[in-house]
């Protein structure tokens, strides 16, 4: 098997991940923040340690601003809905995943917000010029992906963050594809809320993601319930992070994430990114040399390569790759808007996404399979 679906979830995982999850379950898995006994307190400490690890990894000095969620989609929903002001205008890019588009469209459908798209697939100066034209007196938020989940292109969050700061607009960044693969500093980029998964570029387990709040304070809870404090209060409150993490957190998964983020840090983001880019460039060379595929990547910022057939359908190509145990992802990748923007066929395209554990040698097999399609 050749696993080239790291943009969906990274595989395999570093051994420290399973060790930490197992150790937590075997040795100290109490309910964090609920009881006063040693296991509960130890779990609470481990979770706090992970908050510190994540905050520091993304350039924040505030571990309490890390809100754990199930995944990036939950993180984005919490970020948008906790910061949202009614009857305002939102800007989103034309490369968004449904995890951004659908919550925003829901606000529009409910009559609570209006939204506009901006074209992020153009030079930075042109993006800023377009944003200047599109902001309104009541624009309250700009939400965008840092790196496209379909073609991997990285967008200029630093410049867009400055634009948001200048106009006092909240800046929410979907880092589903970039966290762990590209260095992100929440403070330097003026990010109000950074949303990321544990299980992709951070090489953590599925089932845990997070919002890291930056220069903004959430004001609306999204879910209501127990937080382990102020039990007599009638409302959930709005204090970070517990009011946004109602119910029991998954200590084993968070312990695993803590270990995997430290592992990414020890390998170094630059090394991971360089390795991914080298593999992706080789994949691109393979696809181009065979002269029967359309490759959609314009630049190579990470391990993602998106392609379709010139004469053979995406589904047929995918079927044959699957038959040879090459794990990739086809279709629209939950991002029909992005597919429309870059002009893939109606049935989408195939995404190959390399990760740290892939080797150049594996790509020879990919070449042989694709050659015979």
């Amino acid at each position, binding site marked *: 098997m050749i696993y080239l679906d790291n943009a969906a979830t990274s595989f395999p995982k570093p051994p420290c991940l399973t060790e930490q999850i197992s150790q937590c379950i075997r040795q100290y898995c109490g309910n964090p923040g609920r009881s*006063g006994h040693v296991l509960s307190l130890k779990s*609470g400490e481990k979770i706090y340690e992970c908050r510190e690890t994540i905050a520091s990894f993304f350039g924040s000095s505030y571990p309490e601003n890390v809100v754990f969620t199930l995944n990036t989609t939950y993180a984005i929903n919490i970020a948008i809905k906790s910061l949202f002001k009614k009857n305002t205008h939102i800007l989103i890019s034309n490369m968004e995943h449904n995890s951004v588009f659908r919550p925003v469209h829901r606000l529009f459908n409910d009559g609570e917000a209006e939204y506009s798209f901006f074209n992020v697939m153009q030079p930075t100066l042109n993006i800023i010029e377009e944003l200047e034209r599109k902001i309104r007196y009541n624009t309250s938020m700009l939400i965008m992906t840092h790196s496209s989940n379909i073609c991997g292109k990285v967008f200029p969050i630093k410049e867009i963050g400055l634009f948001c700061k200048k106009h006092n607009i909240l800046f929410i960044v979907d880092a589903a594809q970039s966290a762990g693969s590209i260095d992100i500093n929440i403070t330097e980029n003026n990010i109000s809320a950074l949303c990321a998964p544990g299980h992709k570029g951070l090489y953590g387990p599925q089932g845990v993601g997070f919002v890291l709040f930056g220069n903004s304070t959430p004001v609306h809870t999204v879910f209501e319930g127990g937080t382990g404090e102020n039990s007599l209060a009638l409302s959930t409150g709005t204090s970070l992070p517990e009011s946004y993490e109602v119910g029991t957190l998954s200590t084993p998964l968070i312990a695993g994430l803590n270990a995997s983020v430290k592992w990414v840090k020890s390998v170094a983001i630059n090394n991971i990114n360089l390795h991914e880019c080298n593999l992706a460039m080789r994949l691109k060379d393979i696809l181009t040399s065979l002269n029967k595929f359309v490759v959609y990547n314009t630049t190579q910022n990470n391990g993602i390569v998106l392609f379709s057939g010139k004469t053979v359908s995406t589904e047929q190509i995918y079927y044959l790759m699957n038959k040879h145990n090459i794990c990739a992802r086809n279709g629209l990748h939950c991002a029909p808007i992005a597919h429309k923007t870059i002009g893939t066929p109606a049935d989408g395209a195939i995404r190959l996404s390399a990760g740290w554990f892939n080797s150049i040698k594996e790509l020879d097999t990919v070449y042989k399979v694709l050659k015979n399609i």
Partner: protein
Amino acid sequence: MANCIYKIGSITLANKAKQALSSHSVFVRTIKLSSAANGGCAHGIEFNCNQKSNVTHLLLREGINFEEYSR
């Protein structure tokens, strides 16, 4: 000397206080508080009362809110 308790609030902030203090070689332990008179459950820190002025000073410096608590 007896132990003193400061109510901090959430387990996260109690751990933040504990970490901040330990980086100044002041060692405290986090505890669960459950007095109904104080609004229900909360977390706090317990420490030797001879460290009280030190703890108070450092928490204020770190911007961590607290209040004295008695069982």
